[in-house]
Structure formats: structure tokens, C-alpha cells
């Protein structure tokens, strides 16, 4: 087969895929929709209670959020389980763990929480999910439009959003398993949108913290030179969002933790020195929403965890490489 013919055949094969990729909605419209979801979560003032349901468990949190003169503030408190509090002012985030008298301090935009699940760049969502408005529903007494995000491959799960009308604030997120069954859900049970928030409401509940331990988490992406560990065969649309080094007792090198995300789902890759003979990979679903891959090479223990299908963690775990050394 000559080269021109090859290209022609390839073009014909790809044509339906390209047409399908355009989807029933014009990309501009999808972009607008995603931009509105992101803007609503960032710039609206709202307060309410949401429930996170996963793996046969359910946990409720109270959230208050405001945007005033370009200042974004969030306060989240857990209502059951161990007490936890997040105070976020623009890019600085403090997590209070009162039961162990500790504070985790983070800078940078690395982390997001419900309902702020969508953030730019939006192209990544469009590339990997077919995004359509599929109906209307009602959540926490608010009418909302149902938005389906269907994956374009089998390397990530489908999602369904319900966004308040007309404010576009996300009121509900459901992650759907391979058979369309809900495997994880965040949903407001009550919410007030658009009222004024007093800055005093964002003060931490815990004030006597002078002797608390403070963990200063480095800025995401700040390190110029990483460990050299990387994943050669990353599922489309997943990008490395952070690399951290974690200590392991008795090992000078510690553990390398890489996190990849496609904007919604994320996958963690852990690489640590291993003792003992190589072990074949164990691949399994943990509870309902997480996939787990674990294998041992001659020198490393490789572990992959993510809220993605088994195929994704397997593909990642089998293609871990070190760009700087002769490690396998």
C-alpha cells in the first residue's frame, strides 16, 4: 500500500471519529457551559450543607463561600466523623485537624473541592468527555440542569452534574461506574445562594493553636527538578499535577508520589524502594470507586490508586520509568 493511499484510508477511518467528537453541541457552547460552572463556583457567595457519599459511607459538611473585591474565601467543616476544618483565602489553604492538634498549610491552586470541580483549561474536558445537557432535576429545593459528561474512552468514568438554574452553581456530582451505576456522589442537601457573607464567618473555629504542629506543604509544581520518575503511557488527557517526596522510616530516599489528573479524575502513582523478590502485579477494585495496582520490580515497589477503571491504573503501573537513571 503506498503512502498516499494509506493516508486516504486512515482519513476515512478517522472521519466518523472526528464527526462524533464534535458531539451534538458546538464546542463553543460546551466551553461556555464549563466556564459558567467554574465561574459560579468561584465568584458566587453561597452557604449550605453537602453530603459526600462513597464506598458505603456518607459524610456531611457545612460550607460557606464568598467572593468580595476579588478575594475568594471558603470555610468547610465536617459534621460527622473526626472534626476537620478548611479555611481557604485565595491561594492559601489551612486544614485544621483538632484531634491531633495539627494544621496542614498549603499554597497554590493545586487542590479543589466540591462544588468547585471544574477549572480551566476547559479544552481538556472537551477532549475527553462528551458534554451534553440532558434534562432538568431538583436538588436541595433548587431547579437545576442535568449535565452528562460521557468519557470518549474506557479509561475514565462518566459523571453527571446538576447545576443550579440560573446561577450555574454545581449542586450535585455523581460518578457513574462502568454499567452506569452511581459509585460516588457529592450533593447539597440545603443551600442558600447569593446572600452577603460576613468576613467574620470565615474565622477558624480553632484559635488556641499556638502549640499545634504545622505541616507546610510545598507549592504544587514548584520543584524545578523532579525525581526523574515518570509514566510513559499516560491515558489521554491526564497530566501530572504534582510530585511530592514522602519519608519512609529506614529509607533515605523516601517515596515518590506523582499525581495525574484529567481535570476531574485523578490517579496517584507511588514509587518506593523495595526489598525482596519481584512480585507480579495485583490489580483490583477497592470497594466501588477506586482501582488499585501494585507490583514489585527488582528495586521498586510500584503502587497506583485512582478513581478510574482498572485499565487506567494497569496502563499507568506498567509504564513507570525513570528518566534520569538506569532504573527499569
Amino acid at each position, binding site marked *: 500500500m503506498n503512502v498516499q493511499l494509506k493516508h486516504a484510508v486512515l482519513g476515512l477511518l478517522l472521519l466518523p471519529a472526528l464527526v462524533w467528537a464534535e458531539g451534538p453541541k458546538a464546542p463553543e457552547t460546551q466551553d461556555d457551559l464549563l466556564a459558567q460552572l467554574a465561574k459560579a463556583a468561584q465568584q458566587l457567595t453561597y452557604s449550605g450543607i453537602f453530603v459526600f457519599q462513597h464506598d*458505603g459511607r456518607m459524610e456531611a459538611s457545612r460550607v460557606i463561600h464568598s467572593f468580595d473585591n476579588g478575594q475568594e474565601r471558603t470555610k468547610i467543616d465536617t459534621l460527622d466523623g473526626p472534626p476537620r476544618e478548611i479555611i481557604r483565602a485565595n491561594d492559601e489553604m489551612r486544614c485544621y485537624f483538632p484531634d491531633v492538634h495539627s494544621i496542614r498549610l498549603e499554597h497554590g491552586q493545586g487542590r479543589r473541592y466540591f462544588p468547585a470541580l471544574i477549572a480551566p483549561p476547559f479544552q481538556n474536558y472537551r477532549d475527553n468527555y462528551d458534554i451534553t445537557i440532558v434534562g432538568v432535576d431538583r436538588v436541595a429545593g433548587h431547579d437545576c440542569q442535568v449535565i452528562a459528561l460521557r468519557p470518549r474512552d474506557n479509561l475514565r468514568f462518566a459523571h453527571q452534574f446538576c447545576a443550579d438554574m440560573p446561577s450555574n452553581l454545581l449542586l450535585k456530582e455523581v460518578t457513574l461506574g462502568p454499567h452506569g451505576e452511581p459509585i460516588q456522589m457529592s450533593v447539597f442537601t440545603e443551600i442558600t445562594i447569593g446572600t452577603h457573607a460576613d468576613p467574620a464567618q470565615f474565622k477558624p473555629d480553632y484559635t488556641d493553636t499556638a502549640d499545634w504542629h504545622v505541616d507546610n506543604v510545598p507549592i504544587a509544581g514548584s520543584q524545578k527538578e523532579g525525581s526523574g520518575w515518570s509514566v510513559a503511557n499516560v491515558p489521554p488527557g491526564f497530566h501530572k499535577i504534582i510530585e*511530592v*517526596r514522602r519519608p519512609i522510616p529506614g529509607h533515605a530516599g523516601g517515596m515518590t508520589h506523582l*499525581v495525574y489528573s484529567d481535570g476531574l*479524575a485523578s490517579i496517584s502513582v507511588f514509587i518506593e524502594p523495595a526489598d525482596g523478590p519481584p512480585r507480579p502485579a495485583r490489580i*483490583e477494585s477497592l470497594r466501588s470507586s477506586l482501582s488499585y495496582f501494585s507490583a514489585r520490580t527488582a528495586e521498586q515497589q510500584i*503502587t497506583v490508586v485512582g478513581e478510574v477503571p482498572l485499565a487506567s491504573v494497569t496502563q499507568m503501573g506498567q509504564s513507570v520509568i525513570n528518566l534520569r537513571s538506569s532504573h527499569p
Partner: protein
Amino acid sequence: MNREHLSALMDGELDPSLETTVWARMKDEGELARIWNEYHLIGDVLREKGIGNIRLGERVAQALSTEPTVLAPRRFGVAGQPTRWLAVAAAVAAVAVSTWTLQRPEASPSQMVARNEVPAESPAPSPPAEAEHYVAMHRQWSPLSGFQTVDYAAGTVASR
């Protein structure tokens, strides 16, 4: 509306169309709310990380290793209430096992003893038990995981 509905709601298996009704009924009916809290209490006891702080797992393990004849309660001088004693032992053992599965992979020798006392366990380490530690670290960076699930113990990050 019954306990099964509540249980299904907790397990995420309730028909979504029924959810709003269940929430509304729970608000209005004290008894339902009480059962709901009870279910959560049971869940909390079984997974509560705080249990590790009072070293219950180790203490139970130690007790079990020095008292191997669990099935002969009369030897321990609690004649008259053997049935209750067994029930308590079973409950404590259940907590010990669930506590162990929440621990990090590097189990201490005393925890290994506790494990050997449970004949139903297979000799190979269970991947999900190892996996808990990695899951906890993963959750710190996943926007789809609630903040509620973030465990402080996994939160310590070294420089870099």
C-alpha cells in the same frame, strides 16, 4: 420507610428517587434520626482512627497471645456469664481486626500476633489492607474525594 431504606441510603444503594423522601422523613421523625445516628456510631466505632491512639489493637493482641484458650472461658474465672464474655470477646476481636486493616502496612509484631489468632485470614497479606495507606495519600489530591476522608496521618509530607 424502614431501617432497610436508611441502610441502603448509607450504602449508596437507595433508589435516587427515594432519597429526598428519606431525608425529609428523617428530619421529621426522631426515631429515624436516632437509628441513623446509631448506624453512624457503629460505623465510627469500626473505623475510628482514634482507637489506634489508645492502642486497643495492641492490648487485645497481647491479651489474646497470653490467653490462647479463648474457647474455654471457665478457665478465666468468669463462670456464670460465659455467654456474655464470649460475645464481648467477639466484639472486641472484630474491632481489633478492623483496626488492623486500617493500620499501615508495616505491622508491628504484636499486631501480627493478633492476626495469627484469626484462623479465617489467609496467610498472604490482603492487598486492600495494604492499599488503605495509599488510598489515604491519594485522597489528599483528588478533587472528587471529600475533605472528610483525608487522614492526617497520611498528610505528613517531607521537603520538595
